[in-house]
């Protein structure tokens, strides 16, 4: 185990040289590796000078949580333990982050819902913890298969939500996530989502910088609220909370606090723009009249369909959303220029992304939004399923 006091101006407690996020993400030379999403998350955390992590087993995120534990045993992470269940874990994470720690945890599916009350509390504390969600769907019936239904429930918690498509993106995004969530003018929790199994358990080629460099430590004294460490005067909010009074000012204060959390998420846009190189990534034919709007693995499958459709002479493009909160409205509108039909392929029964797209674009764009194709419960989404959906529109009445 390390001691935090081993840190110097140039090196963290595990002896890694401190570098800027820009250096780590964009400038440091990289070499090729072959690893799973769980393994790559370990590599990201290793390079992030993380103070604290709390874990709990649930498929498919367990391995990622074990590997963060190994980082603690190896001296890279300051403190780590297994909590009693996800509700407890997310409260322990809140305690760690409020006490001034850069904190990360992971969960999946039902664990997300068990912990739910904590997430709205997290954003209310304005602490910048990171949750890596390896989505698996929720019960009942019992399921452990890839499905991202739980994201629907996180949408209005006041947290930022980013979505990584593959192993490489998980690495880069989870590093950027700490940096953006800790910006003093943002300073809200962040969820980095990947599709369970498809990303957590799939081995892919990935480019990584050396592991002798790491992010500068988190500075809790740059936070918009003082950390709970008895090193600063107690904030006035501690002594005068809204619940104490039943008057208009207390209601207005509570309301403005909640608006401020959401405004903070909005203020993350320019930072996300920089570190993610855009809130959406578009690929395919620029002048296509058919588009796919997707995130995560669904974007990957849409790209495969796009290549096949191209061979058939049907031009399409894929608009991959990388942030869900904040929702990239401006970027999406720009990408939809000239598009007649946009399909939203998804891995869940409710179509939360379709709903987001429709209500964001309502009255602002003439593109017809087709809410599908949609699979769930662990079903895969072969390119053929997407192609069939497209051909039914393109070749109306003639079938695929």
């Amino acid at each position, binding site marked *: 185990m390390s*001691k*935090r*006091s081993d840190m110097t101006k140039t090196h963290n407690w595990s002896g890694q040289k401190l570098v800027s996020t820009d250096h780590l993400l964009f400038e440091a030379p990289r070499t090729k590796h072959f690893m799973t999403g769980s393994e790559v998350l370990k590599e990201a955390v290793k390079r992030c000078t993380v*103070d*604290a992590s*709390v874990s709990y087993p649930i498929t498919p995120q367990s391995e990622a949580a074990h590997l963060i534990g190994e980082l603690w045993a190896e001296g890279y992470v*300051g*403190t780590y*333990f297994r*909590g*009693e*269940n996800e*509700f*407890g*874990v997310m*409260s*322990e*994470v*809140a*305690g*760690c*982050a*409020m*006490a*001034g*720690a850069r904190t990360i945890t992971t969960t999946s599916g039902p664990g997300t819902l068990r912990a739910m*009350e*904590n997430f709205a*509390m997290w954003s209310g*504390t304005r602490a910048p913890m990171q949750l890596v969600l390896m989505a698996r769907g929720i019960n009942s019936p019992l399921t452990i298969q890839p499905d991202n239904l739980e994201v629907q429930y996180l949408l209005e918690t006041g947290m930022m939500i980013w979505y990584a498509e593959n192993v490489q993106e998980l690495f880069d995004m989870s590093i950027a996530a700490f940096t953006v969530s800790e910006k003093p003018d943002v300073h809200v929790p962040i969820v980095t989502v990947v599709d369970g199994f498809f990303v957590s358990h799939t081995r892919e080629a990935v480019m990584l910088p050396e592991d002798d460099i790491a992010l500068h430590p988190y500075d809790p004294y740059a936070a918009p609220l*003082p950390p*709970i*460490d*008895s*090193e*600063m*005067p*107690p904030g006035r909010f*501690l*002594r*005068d*909370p809204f*619940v*104490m009074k039943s008057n208009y000012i207390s209601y207005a204060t509570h309301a403005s606090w909640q608006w401020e959390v959401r405004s903070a998420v909005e203020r993350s846009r320019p930072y996300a723009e920089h570190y993610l190189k855009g809130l959406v990534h578009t690929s395919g034919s620029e002048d296509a009249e058919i588009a796919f709007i997707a995130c995560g693995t669904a974007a990957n499958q849409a790209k495969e369909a796009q290549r096949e459709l191209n061979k058939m002479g049907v031009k399409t493009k894929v608009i991959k959303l990388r942030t869900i909160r904040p929702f990239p409205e401006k970027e999406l509108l720009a990408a939809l220029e000239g598009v007649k039909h946009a399909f939203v392929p998804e891995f869940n029964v409710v179509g939360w992304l379709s709903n987001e797209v429709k209500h964001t674009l309502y009255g602002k764009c003439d593109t017809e939004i087709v809410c599908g194709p949609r699979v769930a419960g662990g079903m895969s989404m072969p390119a053929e399923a997407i192609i069939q959906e497209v051909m039914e529109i393109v070749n109306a009445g003639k079938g695929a």
Partner: protein
Amino acid sequence: MSIDKYKINPEFRDIMPQEIIDLEEKATWAQNQDKLRGIKELPETKEILEEHSLCAGCPEAMALRYVLSSLPNPEDTIIVNSTGCTSLMFPHIALHTVHSLFGNQNAVASGIKRVLEWRFPDTVKDVVVLAGDGATVDIGLDYTLQSFFRQEKITTLCFDNEVYANTGGQESGATAKGQVFKMAPTGKKFEKVPMWELATTSGCHYSVNMTASAPKAVAKAVREAILIAREIGPTFINIYTPCILEIGLSANEGLGEMKDQDKDRFKSYKHVSPEAEAFLAKCKEEGLL
């Protein structure tokens, strides 16, 4: 940290409320006292609890004053609360306090304590949980016991008024068998949960059941519990602070009720592990008790 954090910027002194000025001039902290802090100071010094909004004669408010006056090191103490009547007092405490959810107090405290040990390895930072019986015995039982199992170095105080008072008088796990409360309209069907015994078997090095009838006894237990938690492991104190409103007593009858219960449901229970016993003896020699 230094009590200098309570020093007022001279530029703003003339517009500061008196209670803030008093915190700088008349409060007792570990750093400005030669002797141990304690309840004897209550009449003459500035308390670190500002005027609160609980009912007149509320024993919970009394108990909180005793607790705060006996903290061994308030300038480095963090109080973690839960929802309930206690959450109406925590904002009036001039220390770092946290309220996050109902029942998660020991989980939040675990995270805070571990990170403070990591960030400040050479400074003692006491983490004290202060919650009611609903928060401790019912909704938060899992997190409370699990923090004991994990040997978290925190002190847990349960203000046991044997009822959900803040929500209007519903039966709790700490209610006595047979008692009629809301949600138990024909009387409670099972025994009062002996939380102090659960604390003992779950790994607390110090577990006490008491009432707040004797201020000195409360102060002594709090001090001992915090010192043991610092060095050895989890400690627990269950304090009877009756809700006079819900059991139909007047503002001047709380003390009598606590005295009656000293011989009944809250008759003295004290568990001290051998390790903690030896440590307390050492503390006495060093003048820490």
